[in-house]
């Protein structure tokens, strides 16, 4: 298999680069490899789209979980307050 053909087939490597690129810059070689692969592989283009969407979803979901929703019970808070007050004596 020629080097270009190898890149075109290697979805494992392409998806690895797709993930890496979302966090850091790729080397020139990696960028070329990914461009070649994505230009001919619609499945990996779909993977890329879904991967980015998952990232946004994770951030959105957890960002909002932090902003609201979960509350400690008053009972637990009271106990916690007592423990803190005790140690401050």
């Amino acid at each position, binding site marked *: *298999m020629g080097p270009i053909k*190898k890149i075109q*087939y*290697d*979805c*494992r*490597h392409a*998806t*690895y680069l797709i*993930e*890496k690129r979302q*966090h*850091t810059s790729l080397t020139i070689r990696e960028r070329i490899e990914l461009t070649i692969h994505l230009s001919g592989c619609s*499945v*990996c283009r*779909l*993977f890329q*789209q*879904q*991967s980015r*969407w*998952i*990232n946004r*979803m*994770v*951030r*959105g*979901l*957890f960002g*909002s*979980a*932090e*902003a*609201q*929703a*979960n*509350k*400690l019970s008053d009972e*637990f*808070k009271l106990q*916690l*307050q007592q*423990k*803190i*007050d005790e*140690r*401050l004596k």
Partner: protein
Amino acid sequence: MSREKETHDQSIKTSRPDPRQWVERYADHLYSYAIARLGEEEQARDLVQETFLAALEKVSEFRGNSSERTWLTAILKYKIIDAYRKRNSGLRMQKMEEEPELEFFEESNGHWKEAYSPQTLGIEGADPLANKELAAILKKCLFKLPALWLSVFTMKHLDNTATETICKELKVTTSNFWVIIHRAKLNLRACIQRSW
């Protein structure tokens, strides 16, 4: 009157940390932060308590460079990493390692295996916050990941921690870090596709 109030507010802002107010001001925030990353209420509660008690011990180190809230959250963050680490060394991780890892690609050429090839889900543009079912699936799939992968994934995606810091904290090499980021996403995506 209004001027008096202003001076009063200012004195609060610049004052030293006030541990007696912590529970009221920050407990729910810290709890939500912990539960989002741990998925277990009991453990999240324990870590909130540990955070306050640890903060009390080193309250003199608080420099006021950040807000009290940021400072407390940073302490909690390290508690969560510790918890992940314990999960990694505990039964949970062993169990995950025994499970066969899904191999998504052909051994010979790295091409997608037919059965695992991504398919359009029809929800790519959906807002996860507006879709409870989708949010539940995402959470379920995320907490199915092996503890080390989950640690790396949440630290990178939710806290935006520097890669070097994550590698140091979790004792993984840089190349292993990218392998984990890659596998975590492959598994998460496949799980969502299976569950949807």
